[in-house]
């Protein structure tokens, strides 16, 4: 029998048993689609966070109290504004040190209000981080020194409480205290559904009075070049430890943060991969089951074909082609479905989904291997039976 003929025999057999063929394909479809989607979500999350950390700007060293470790409890900060000057001297350029003291507060204009992160900062933030003001201007050193009540609004805060009105020069209430709007940030978008523009900046001095604190939460230093990062880290920490001998401080870079986040996301990806593997397994078991049943059910057919002159290899070829056709069709549909679902997740949910090229290939290979193995091995066994013996099987 020619291969083309075997193809037609296989196709005829598949068409003659539409339900069974459909069910077998469904197993492959579900397995492949699940893997594609779950892997897409895992890699999407990872990529999103990485982009965001990298998007903070380059060569940034974060100085925080306590140890920087995944799982360690946050330490109450004893850092004060004097330390900004101290670190400025260590770096040799006070303009490279940014500061933050943050709290969640209500920002309102008349009846319109919004809960936002209120960040007390100094004038160096746009320099250290890549934060751009879309309209107006940023906080100046004079604003900080004179504890002026001025505010730069995140884009969604501006939209929520001002609507279409130009907020520049207008008054807003931050935690019940009136501030004047001097700028509006460029929008940054959201991450995992969390709005990154629900934020306002005020001078750090004004923030300390507003929150009733003396401390600052964190410092960020922009190193002049990549090579300066490592030596600076050490000098920053030792300068602070000279001043506060009983305290611990950490100076971490984006790379180190990425490493820590990477570990958290690695866990997430592991869980997703495990789920994907399970669904692939379930899909594979489904495929193998139907393949086994279908070959069993068709032992009589195999016997008859042999009685009419089919060789063992004709039988094998037919079942191999059937299995391959089912797996290829199911795999392609599964990939289509998985990619479609990933795009849909991307579009309608806060979860980002990035399709990794290897996931459809892997899922496809695994389910095809399962389908072919479980389709062909029993067909091979049945093909060895004497025709009458095969014909007698129920």
């Amino acid at each position: 029998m020619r291969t083309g003929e075997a193809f037609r025999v296989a196709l005829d057999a598949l068409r003659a048993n539409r339900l069974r063929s459909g069910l077998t394909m469904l197993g492959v479809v579900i397995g492949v689609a699940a893997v594609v989607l779950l892997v897409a979500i895992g890699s999407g999350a990872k990529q999103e966070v990485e982009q965001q950390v990298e998007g903070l700007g380059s060569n940034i060293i974060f100085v925080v109290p306590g140890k920087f470790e995944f799982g360690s409890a946050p330490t109450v900060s004893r850092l004060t504004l004097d330390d900004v000057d101290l670190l400025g001297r260590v770096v040799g350029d006070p303009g490279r040190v940014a500061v933050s003291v943050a709290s969640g507060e209500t920002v309102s204009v008349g009846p319109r209000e919004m809960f936002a992160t209120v960040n007390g900062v100094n004038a160096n933030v746009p320099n250290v981080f890549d934060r751009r003001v879309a309209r107006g201007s940023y906080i100046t050193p004079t604003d900080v020194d004179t504890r002026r009540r001025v505010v730069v609004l995140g884009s969604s805060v501006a939209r929520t409480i001002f609507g279409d009105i130009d907020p520049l020069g207008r008054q807003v209430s931050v935690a019940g205290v009136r501030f004047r709007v001097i700028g509006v940030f460029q929008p940054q978008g959201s991450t995992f559904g969390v709005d990154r523009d629900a934020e306002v900046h005020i001078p750090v001095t004004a923030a300390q009075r507003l929150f009733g604190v003396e401390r600052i939460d964190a410092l960020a230093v922009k190193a002049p070049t990549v090579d300066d990062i490592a030596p600076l880290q050490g000098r920053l920490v030792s300068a602070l430890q000279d001043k506060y001998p009983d305290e611990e401080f950490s100076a971490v870079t984006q790379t180190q943060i990425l490493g820590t986040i990477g570990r958290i996301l690695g866990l997430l990806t592991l869980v997703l991969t495990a789920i994907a593997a399970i669904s692939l397994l379930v899909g594979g078991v489904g495929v193998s089951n139907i393949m086994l049943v279908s070959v069993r059910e068709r032992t009589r057919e195999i016997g008859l074909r042999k009685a009419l002159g089919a060789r063992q290899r004709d039988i094998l070829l037919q079942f191999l082609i059937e299995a391959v056709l089912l797996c290829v069709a199911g795999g392609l549909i599964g990939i289509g479905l998985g990619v479609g679902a990933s795009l849909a997740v991307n579009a309608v949910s806060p979860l980002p989904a990035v399709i990794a090229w290897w996931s459809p290939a892997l899922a496809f290979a695994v389910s095809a291997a399962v389908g072919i193995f479980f389709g062909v091995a029993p067909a091979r066994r049945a093909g060895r039976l004497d025709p009458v013996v095969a014909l007698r099987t129920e």
Partner: protein
Amino acid sequence: MTAEVVGGARRELAVEARDVVRRYQLDGVSVEALRGVTLRIEQGAYAAIVGPSGSGKSTLMHLLGCLDRPTSGTLLLGGRNVADLSDAELAELRNRTIGFVFQSFQLLTRTSALENVALPLVYRGVRRAERRDRAAAALEAVGLGKRMGHRPGQLSGGEQQRVAIARALVGEPTVLLADEPTGNLDTRSGAEVIALLGRLNSERGVAVVVVTHDLDVADQARRRIHVRDGLVERDTGALGPGVDPR
């Protein structure tokens, strides 16, 4: 090639069974369906196998058709020992030399009558168009020219039986083994099938072995083989050449 002298002429042996035993193992109990059958069917012969139900007729037919293996004993087809043949040689034999009509038809249920009949030609590498033509002709020959597109489920028992006969004929075998081919037919279509078998035998020289309970069929055959309890009880062929068994 094994040959023997029959009626003065050298006639080739189509099938030969030598002391064939077929034992079935069922739940530890062994059933001897054939207990040592020796039989020679010459080319162009017309033999009827008769005997009570359960006597081993179908078992014997399956062995003669190379669809089963004897527990012991030897089967020769065209002089060659079946046990020595490879899978491909056996397949070729079943495909070209033997036409088999099963007692229970054995049609593919989800496939049309025409495609069922064409199936042996598929394994012979005959092109699709020619297959259809030949299968259609075979169906015409059994009087089913108007039922080609029907599936077995849409055919009566007698019609299914005729599809099975057409399938056995389509490959133009030299040995036709038919296990109760008229069992499900009324007298008239039964007679047609018998006439068809007779023509195949007399015009084309096909060796026909037919299991039957039908005395008309048995009468038409030149030779009658009586089987009982797994043994050949009486064989009119053994009476010798030139002797009319009737």
